[in-house]
């Protein structure tokens, strides 16, 4: 054997050592990400209120105790009501008992017999205090504190949730490990690519101090998860182009500002409800302006350029769409029809079709289905909407042959490696090449393919950072939807429940379209992957959507109330 082979030079030893270190970091990042995600979701689960009644309603004649479990309670003859009246003279959905920051209220929801508080007929919302009598039909109920009827006091909660600062610190650790990988991405150590991640770290701790210390909030799990994903995305974008990374960083900052603004704005749902019409009209105007001014970019006319900034109005309309769609329980029960919202949705989707942005239209449609079902509970409405959509899809395939083309290549990409299947086969090939832990940041090949940093970003993560991390990232998005669901009955109002489910569902649906489109499980649509894709408008909007989930958690506003 040649001696030169058996005794490698010092330089190659060092190089080998660095390679090994980078590999170990690539293994450590997804493992740590799993730990952070697991603990965040555990903390979210532990932080949920147990469904112990604080108030009860006592029947004046039978002295039966009806627990009041929620912030908004429907009362009526129907068995689906939260407080069921066994009274033929009561309406099926008779009234709503609401808890607000200023106390308890009862609202009559177009009942036949009317609702009375201490004998006075309720018009709109009427405040009720413990001891007051609420009469509906031939039933009279007294509102009482749980403690006053001798019920056992709620057991003290044993909650050993992980510390928010600790979780954010672990997230910081993943970002530090990504930063080290970036520093060595070019072969030699270079500190410059570490800067965007360092700035992100500053941003996340600033937000932490602002909301936890200054505002006195008690939870930070959602923000931690969002920053975990943003860190992965930002590391990836830095590896591709440092300049784009700074744009992305600005978008995250803007997103955080919008996030905080929306949480503030959503704080009083009755206040926010009054803005819905204005917001809806603004959204439609935005679309109209878009259609008038937009330039076509890659086949879709969904961009407006104002000075140096290009924005995608449809991303912001998503937030407006959720706001317009949602409603408090008493209003839902009073105005049962969906006509206004269906009209608004139709206009939004119509505008998107004119912009030829079919991917976003699909996301809006998914949001529409979720909101329509949450509001009406009617399978018929949803089926009808699906039937209309199927018809619409059929017409589009007839009218726009290039959409049909995407369907033709779907599941046949290997027969089109040079044309319509070009992007997908490369995603698959490079995904497999990366293995579980990736080839390393900055060493990928997929980045050179068109739209790699947004539409195909899942493949780039797989290739450079490993399939494991990519899967962890998208599973976090799926778990957000589960989380939104688990809060649906616990939130402070149906307003938040509907908004959170719609936002969580739309984020997950968008992730599905992106990931499965790129990997040929579904036809390629060209939408972004939440938190991970390069894209300013998209990043800002995703943070906005996250605000709906945050607002749904009653802990979000708990501290502020305590202060008053």
């Amino acid at each position: 054997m040649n001696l030169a082979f058996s005794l490698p030079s010092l330089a190659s030893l060092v190089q080998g050592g660095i390679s090994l270190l980078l590999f170990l970091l690539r293994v450590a990042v997804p493992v740590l990400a799993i730990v952070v995600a697991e603990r965040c979701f555990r903390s979210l689960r532990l932080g949920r209120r147990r469904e112990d009644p604080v108030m009860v309603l006592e029947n004046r004649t039978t002295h039966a105790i009806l627990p009041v479990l929620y912030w908004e309670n429907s009362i009526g003859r129907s068995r689906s009501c939260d407080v069921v009246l066994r009274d033929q003279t009561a309406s099926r959905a008779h009234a709503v008992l609401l808890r607000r920051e200023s106390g308890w209220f009862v609202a009559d929801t177009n009942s036949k017999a009317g609702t009375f508080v201490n004998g006075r007929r309720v018009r709109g919302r009427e405040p009720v205090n413990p001891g007051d009598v609420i009469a509906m039909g031939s039933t009279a109920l007294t509102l009482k504190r749980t403690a006053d009827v001798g019920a056992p006091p709620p057991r003290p909660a044993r909650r050993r949730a992980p510390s928010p600062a600790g979780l954010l610190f672990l997230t910081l650790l993943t970002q530090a490990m990504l930063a080290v990988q970036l520093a060595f991405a070019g072969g030699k150590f270079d500190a410059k690519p570490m800067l965007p991640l360092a700035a992100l770290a500053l941003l996340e701790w600033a937000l932490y101090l602002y909301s936890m210390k200054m505002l006195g909030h008690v939870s930070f799990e959602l923000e931690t998860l969002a920053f975990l994903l943003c860190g992965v995305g930002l590391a990836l974008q830095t590896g591709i182009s440092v300049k784009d990374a700074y744009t992305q960083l600005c978008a995250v900052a803007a997103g955080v500002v919008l996030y905080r603004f929306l949480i503030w704005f959503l704080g009083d749902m009755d206040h926010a409800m009054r803005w819905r019409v204005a917001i809806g009209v603004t959204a439609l105007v935005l679309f109209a302006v878009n259609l008038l001014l937009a330039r076509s970019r890659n086949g879709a006319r969904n961009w407006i350029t104002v000075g140096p900034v290009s924005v995608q109005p449809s991303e912001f309309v998503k937030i407006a769409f959720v706001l317009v769609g949602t409603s408090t329980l008493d209003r839902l029960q009073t105005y049962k029809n969906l006509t206004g919202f269906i009209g608004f949705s139709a206009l939004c989707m119509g505008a998107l079709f004119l912009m030829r942005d079919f991917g976003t239209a699909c996301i809006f449609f998914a949001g529409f289905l979720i909101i329509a079902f949450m509001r009406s509970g009617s399978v018929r409405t949803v089926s009808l909407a699906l039937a209309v959509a199927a018809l619409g899809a059929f017409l589009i395939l007839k009218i726009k042959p290039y959409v049909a083309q995407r369907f033709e290549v779907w599941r046949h990409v290997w027969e089109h490696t040079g044309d319509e299947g070009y992007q997908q086969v490369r995603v698959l090939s490079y995904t497999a090449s990366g293995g579980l832990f990736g080839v390393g940041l900055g060493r990928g090949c997929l980045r050179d393919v068109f739209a790699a940093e947004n539409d195909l970003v899942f493949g780039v993560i797989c290739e450079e950072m490993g399939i494991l991390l990519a899967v962890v990232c998208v599973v976090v998005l799926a778990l957000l939807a589960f989380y939104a669901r688990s809060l649906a009955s616990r939130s402070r109002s149906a307003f938040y429940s509907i908004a959170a489910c719609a936002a969580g569902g739309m984020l997950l649906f968008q992730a599905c379209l992106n990931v499965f489109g790129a990997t040929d499980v579904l036809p390629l649509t060209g939408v972004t992957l939440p938190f991970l894709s390069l894209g300013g408008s998209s990043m800002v909007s995703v943070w906005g959507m996250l605000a709906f989930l945050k607002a749904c958690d009653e802990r979000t506003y708990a501290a502020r109330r305590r202060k008053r």
Partner: protein
Amino acid sequence: MKTMGRRSLVLILLAAGFFFGLGFFLRDLVLHGGFWAVQSFNGHLNGTGVAASGRVLDRGGAVLAQTKDGKRVYSPDLATRCAMLHAVGDTDGFISTSVQYNFRSELSGYSLVMGLATPTGKASGNDVTLTLDAGLCRLAREKLAGRNGLAAVCNYRTGELLCMVSTPDFDPQNPPKDLDTNKAYSGAYLNKVLSSTFTPGSVFKVVTAAAAIENITDLDSRVWNCNGSVVINGNRITDIGAYGTLHFKDALAKSSNVAFGQIAVELGSKLPAEADRMGFNRSFSLDGIPTAESVYDVKSASADQLAWSGVGQYTDMANPFHMLVLMDAAANGGTPVMPYLVKSVTSPAGLPLRVGAGETGPELIQPSTAERLKGYLRYNVTSQYGESLFPGLAVCAKTGTAEVGGGKAPNCWMMGFSSDEETPLAFVVMVENSSEGSVASAGRIASSLMTAAAKLAG
């Protein structure tokens, strides 16, 4: 609010859809990841079209192909490069039955866990060691001496394929410019052993003989009057000469069309049944590389056509690899040990990732039939071809001279096996368009190969 909780279950539907899709994608990744990764456009594979960075070695460890500085480099010896071309493959991946094409995932070093990445950052593929002996392949090519044809030898005990050569060939290191235009290279991308079928001619009489053994009870006491030709259904079936009255074993040894044509007619539908059983009209595979199907179809044949089909003419087609498996089966009492090509796949660290082995194939011949057939095939050599062709190897064989029409000289076949326990070798050789006669052309090559292979085995 209770209804909100219940209605929010729609999100579970969506999440279920997501996890289903994710599972679907990951399942595809597990099943096809190797194929996905080893595409010629993949930038992680050093730019070699065959997507191979590992080495290909012969059974003795001689390097047949490797990647140096991003370039695919083949054996330094031209004759070895050409002789191993079809087994090893070319750099562009045009030879789709080659190891470099079919084992590109192994050669690239792909694994599900690591993809094409390595902890040390240095990409290195796995080594694929073949069962082939480069020397034997070189000898086969040398003996083919520029004629088009093929040769294959295997060990029928272990299944190791020792020699597999197809001509014409070319130098994979410096592919000739006129490869696609020069007629001399026509068929050079084809491994004829695996991918071609040829008119079998008299080698098909092995099948007719097997059917006769099973269906004609007084076979050995029967005689056929072979006086040069016989008329069946108005069509004249001819022999090269008049052999006179022949017993069955002499009819096979002298390869009398007159006798076998009549036997085929007598067998009728028994003959296609026997052909199907012996592996016609189906594909075999060599380490997952599928072979062309041999064809025997007499559904719409008249009596004279049936007679011709019984002597390997009419529409009969035979795949050389199938013929080798058939000889393997005859040597093994009817059930072949399937030949294999890849002896082992080892990681750069020397860790064996896969070890090849000859698996037992389907029973092609009934054991008693195989035993009697062996006796007849042995008699062919001792009485006709000459024991001197294969000294000391106790070879059983059958030749064939297949008329191909179009004014071309016939294709000359010989296939057989050594019945000696010490030298468990089976072979098939075919020389295209040779007017020398099958023993003089294919027989000579087989003789050299078997003698050399016997030394290898010994």
